């Protein structure tokens, strides 16, 4: 390890704080130091990033950056951000991590559903895949159970894998009391106040599908296919 001076201690959590305040990183929650310190939680990540040890030290503010040349420093810097994201994806589905995500959710920290009939339902971040580098983060609405693009372009650069594809569903499996009551309200297109025939027909069809599902759930029957 590096010669650990007293001043180092004053800057504890410096890197993580800096990272969390970066523009675009608003959806991240702070990972507990203990979680990162437990190497068991990081199993397999060493093969995911370049200069893993240095990146991990950078996250923990344990890295002597003066010992690195500029090019290496840049790689380590990138690796540290990526690593923090990968750890974040694991952390947010622990019970402690879920609590932190829920605190943010309850204040609308991830935004509100843009769907008018969801009445400003609070959203949760979700990835489309758990593999990094494929899809930017999306937002899940537990009312309409659909996913939306974040409003701000700065979130289009945030990897969805840093939140994972399971996060909102794990949260609502674990806390079913937080699932919002569903509403059957739909937008009804009208022309000069009159319903549109095809739409009315489609809505009847949807009503039927909904009723059938309702019936199936009440009977506890698994759909045949």
């Amino acid at each position, binding site marked *: 390890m590096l010669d650990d001076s007293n001043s180092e201690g004053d800057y504890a959590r410096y890197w993580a704080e800096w990272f969390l305040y970066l523009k675009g990183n608003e959806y991240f929650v702070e990972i507990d130091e203990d979680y990162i310190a437990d190497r*068991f*939680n990081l*199993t397999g990540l060493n*093969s*995911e990033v370049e200069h893993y040890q240095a990146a991990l030290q950078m996250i923990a503010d344990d890295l002597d950056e003066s010992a690195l040349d500029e090019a290496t420093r840049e790689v380590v810097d990138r690796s540290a951000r990526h690593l923090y994201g*990968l750890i974040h*994806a*694991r952390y947010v*589905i*622990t*019970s402690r991590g879920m609590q932190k995500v829920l605190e943010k959710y309850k204040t609308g920290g991830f935004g509100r559903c*843009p*769907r*008018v009939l969801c009445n400003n339902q609070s959203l949760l971040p979700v990835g489309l*895949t*758990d*593999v*990094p580098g*494929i*899809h930017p983060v*999306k937002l*899940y609405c537990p009312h*309409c*159970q*659909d*996913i*939306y*693009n974040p*409003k701000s372009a700065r979130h289009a650069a945030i990897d969805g894998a840093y939140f994972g*594809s*399971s996060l*909102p*569903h*794990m949260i*609502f*499996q*674990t806390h*079913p009391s937080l*699932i919002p009551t*569903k509403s059957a309200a*739909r*937008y009804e*297109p*009208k*022309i*000069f*106040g009159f319903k*549109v025939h095809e*739409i009315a*027909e489609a809505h009847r*069809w*949807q*009503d039927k*599908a*909904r009723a059938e*599902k309702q019936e*199936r*759930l009440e009977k506890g029957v*698994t759909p045949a*296919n």
Partner: protein
Amino acid sequence: MSYLPEQSPAHYDPNAEFSDSGDSDTGTDSISWISWFCSYTGHEYFTEVMDEYIEDEFNMTGLRQMVPYYNYALEMILDIEEDLDNELPDMPDVHVIENSAERLYGLVHARYIITRQGLQQMSDKYLAGHFGTCPRFLCHNTFVVPCGRSDTPSVDSVKLYCPQCKDIYSPASTRFSSVDGAYFGTSFPQIFFMTFPNYLPTGVPNDYYVPRIYGFKVSEHSKAGPRMEWLRQFPESFEEDEDGDEEIDVSLRSANGEDTSPRTVAPVDEATAADDQPVDYDQGAMPPVKDDQRSGVSATPDSAADAQRQNSTKDIMAGIEQTRLAS
């Protein structure tokens, strides 16, 4: 005139609908009131109503009763120069007239955009992307059109209609939250897409989002399971899905090599266009799960990965869900 010409944008007050410096001289090179109004921040959805339309009294039928100081407002909109220095004794405050002018223009606008000429102008704006795209991920940046939830002013702000999911959304930017939906009207989207049926999305299936945990569908028997598929499905899609693959989701779709790209007029999001490899759990991205961290889900990453490879998620998910409920 009471509004400021475009050449002095520094004087615009972003917090006010209209600015008034008290300067009554706009000069001969100033833009028209209508052009100024439509170029104002937050007014990006408006199109310019032709003077001839407003000058035709037939088109204005009934508006006199809905707009206070109608005559003054009309003169303001049409840039009919009044010598404001010689105010008439009953002349209201200029801000009052400005509010009336906006109300009058908005109501005329709602009528104009469903005329032949108005529809054409709105079509140009639509194709230029002025109204933006649907925020719903599975609509793949389908272009939207503005609409109101009421034809009565001051009821609700402008919303956006998506022809793909046939739903309405709040504009992303708060600058539109003060724009009255009645200035676009409740009928506009329907008339617009009846007029331009070729703008309607074609060949795009009615995808809906399938919640998954570790790659497995969350059972519909779970409290957190899917309940809203009906909202995103329409009859014609079901006829296509008779082959049994009625549940379409993000990762499986592209694995089938099907085209999920939006209509040609919509810009394709790079990140979503290039994407969609099936989820691969061999990447080591899945966390090891300690017993105290399982959060009530009994699927372990390893068994999940195996199952994913076998690609028979439907049956397995049902099994896992049974296990989960039983434990």
